[in-house]
């Protein structure tokens, strides 16, 4: 499913859930309001409502439903002589007047409804059988067995007065607590579900935005590479002609400053076109087992040769002597050299003595890592944002492709090239090249490099 579709779907679900929350809140309020009433008040409310329903023609069988829904002990009708009103279709189940408070019942028949104690149901107690098992059976507390009764007049125009009796035991009294718990649970569930859904929607939207950004960046990278390739090809041939012409002119007229300037600029442009070409195409990598430690040693030798004054720039090699990795040795040499030269240039711009450290380590997971650390001015946060963006450079003679090409090479190895986060008190910059134990298949590596290419 596409992220946008998923987001829309989740958004719809979240909308429905929020509607559900609204309804749950209303239910919760109604439930809590009901639960806050006393048992007597609730029984009275039910009795009045049911009595009115009976007056308006509801069948007495309604009372079965009333009793069942409210966990009542019984709900029945008595006639004016306090005899049970027969209900069609029922067997002859009766109620004795011993369950009834006759005085309150008679008052109710005269229009004075009331709710009060009706009878206490006797249970077996410890005296019934003095054994341990009887004691375990327990004896109910004083109020457990008490049954309340509500008496409500039922007065229909065409019928003699009747009396509605509702008997309520402990189960009815326990309903508010159950209702309260259910209402809170429903509200909490709806709120939790809606929150979860909202989080999922936000995550899906973020993922969609990220994917879109990667797609745009990949598109732009592709366009840049195509343009670079075109420019490099167009410039390369005329450069060859200019170089040949300048060299011919030098042979005919002898060396001159002007001709040397022309040849130097041609050389610089030639380097530039080569970088363009490398950026626009991915030369095939020859992956083989190699020793990154040895490569670092080689680079240090070369750098010391180029910067012999240790007082000005000290080249240090740290870490493991041998660091095995799977990679293309020439490409990785280019990467490390690029990082080291960048660092050396940065430090040269700053007076004083500096140190460039190359640290190679074998990682516990079998991968390898090389750190190139300098004591230069460091990289400002603003520049860090566009560090790997093509053609962005702070150097007057740079192309802005060195780090981009280096990153691409490392990514094609399945690794990462990152700038280590610096603390404020730390000097310089530290780039980390991390390589996995096993490089990915070429296609996967290309996809990875393509996705992060900008």
């Amino acid at each position, binding site marked *: 499913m596409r992220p946008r579709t998923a987001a829309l779907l989740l958004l719809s679900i979240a909308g429905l859930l929020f509607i559900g929350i609204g309804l749950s809140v209303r239910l919760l309020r*109604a439930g809590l309001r009901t639960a806050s009433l006393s048992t007597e008040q609730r029984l009275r409310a039910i009795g009045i409502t049911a009595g*009115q329903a009976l007056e308006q023609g509801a069948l007495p069988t309604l009372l079965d439903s009333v009793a069942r829904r409210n*966990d009542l002990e019984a709900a029945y009708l008595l006639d004016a002589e306090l005899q049970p009103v027969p209900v069609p279709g029922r067997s002859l189940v*009766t109620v004795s007047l011993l369950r009834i408070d*006759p005085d309150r019942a008679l008052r109710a028949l005269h229009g004075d409804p009331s709710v009060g104690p009706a009878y206490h149901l006797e249970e077996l107690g410890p005296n019934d059988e003095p054994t341990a098992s009887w004691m375990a059976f327990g004896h109910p507390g004083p109020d457990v067995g008490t049954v309340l009764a509500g008496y409500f007049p039922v007065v229909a125009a065409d019928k003699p007065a009747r009396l509605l009796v509702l008997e309520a035991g402990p189960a009815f009294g326990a309903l508010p607590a159950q209702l309260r718990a259910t209402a809170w649970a429903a509200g909490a569930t709806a709120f939790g579900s809606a929150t979860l859904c909202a989080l999922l929607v936000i995550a899906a939207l973020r993922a969609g935005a990220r994917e879109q950004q990667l797609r745009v960046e990949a598109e732009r990278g592709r366009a840049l590479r195509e343009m670079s390739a075109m420019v490099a090809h167009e410039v390369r041939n005329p450069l060859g002609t200019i170089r040949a012409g300048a060299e011919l002119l030098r042979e005919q007229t002898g060396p001159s400053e002007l001709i040397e300037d022309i040849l130097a600029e041609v050389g610089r442009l030639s380097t530039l076109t080569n970088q363009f070409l490398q950026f626009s195409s991915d030369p095939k990598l020859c992956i083989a087992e190699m020793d990154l430690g040895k490569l670092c040693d080689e680079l240090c030798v070369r750098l010391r040769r180029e910067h012999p004054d240790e007082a000005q720039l000290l080249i240090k090699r740290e870490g493991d002597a041998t660091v095995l990795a799977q990679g293309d040795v020439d490409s990785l040499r280019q990467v490390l050299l690029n990082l080291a030269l960048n660092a050396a240039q940065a430090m040269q711009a700053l007076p004083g003595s500096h140190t460039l450290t190359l640290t190679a380590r074998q990682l516990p997971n079998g991968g390898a890592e090389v750190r190139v650390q300098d004591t230069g001015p460091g990289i400002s946060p603003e520049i860090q944002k566009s560090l790997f963006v093509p053609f962005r450079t702070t150097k007057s003679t740079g192309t802005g492709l060195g780090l981009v090409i280096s990153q691409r090479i490392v990514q094609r190895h399945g690794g990462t090239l990152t700038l280590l986060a610096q603390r404020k008190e730390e000097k310089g910059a530290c780039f980390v090249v991390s390589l996995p134990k096993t490089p990915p298949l070429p296609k996967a590596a290309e996809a990875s490099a393509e996705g992060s290419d900008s």
Partner: protein
Amino acid sequence: MWTQLLKIGVIALGLLPQVAAAQVGAAAHASGAAMVSDQGLLLDGVRAFRSEHYTEALGIFHKVEAERQPRDIGFYLGMALHKLGRHAEALPAFRSAHRAGLREPVADYYQALSCYRMGMLARARRDLSALVAHSGAPGSGPALGPRLQLGAGRFLQAIEQAAAARDPKEVGAGGLHSFEAALLRAEGLLSAGGKEELALEWLDETVELLAALPERDAQLPAVRKLMLRMREALSGKPAEADLLALWARVGAGSAL
């Protein structure tokens, strides 16, 4: 206040149709006043019962029985006798109401309690099981309330515990009272004379225990013999019908 209560009532009832909010309290029909003229004595008994003056209540109920012979008077007598601890008399009283085809769940519960206190555990278990099973059955009338169900359930559990606590060598089938003891008790009461109705109660217990006996066929002649004796004693009395019902339940043949 009334409107608020009415709304809550509708919610609690689950009644979807809107019920018009009309004032009820003062709308009692005049016909409500014309009543209970011949219930007055019974209501006096009920008032005495509710005030825990059980002897007085019993006297009034006997008077009502003599004057009007209402079909359900057995429940009133049985309950009063139960409260007085006269379980041997309470059981025939409850039985007379049942004979009229009436059922009263609370009275049935107390009848089972009387059975238990008389030592008729098999009957108590049977009656309580029937009471719980009967509840809520289609066409059975108002379902047994949760309070009564809870009480009956605890009661049944207590009977099982009591049965388990007894020595299995001295008890009969199902761990309850022994068949032989119940039979002897019924025979003894019948021989004593004037206690036929109580003998019938014990016969009921005997029949209940017999049904669970592995050697049922071997014991059947003794039960049959007792029933024949009891038939002579109860001849022409209302309890004879109950004896015939027991005879049919045992399947003791047609000689009766």
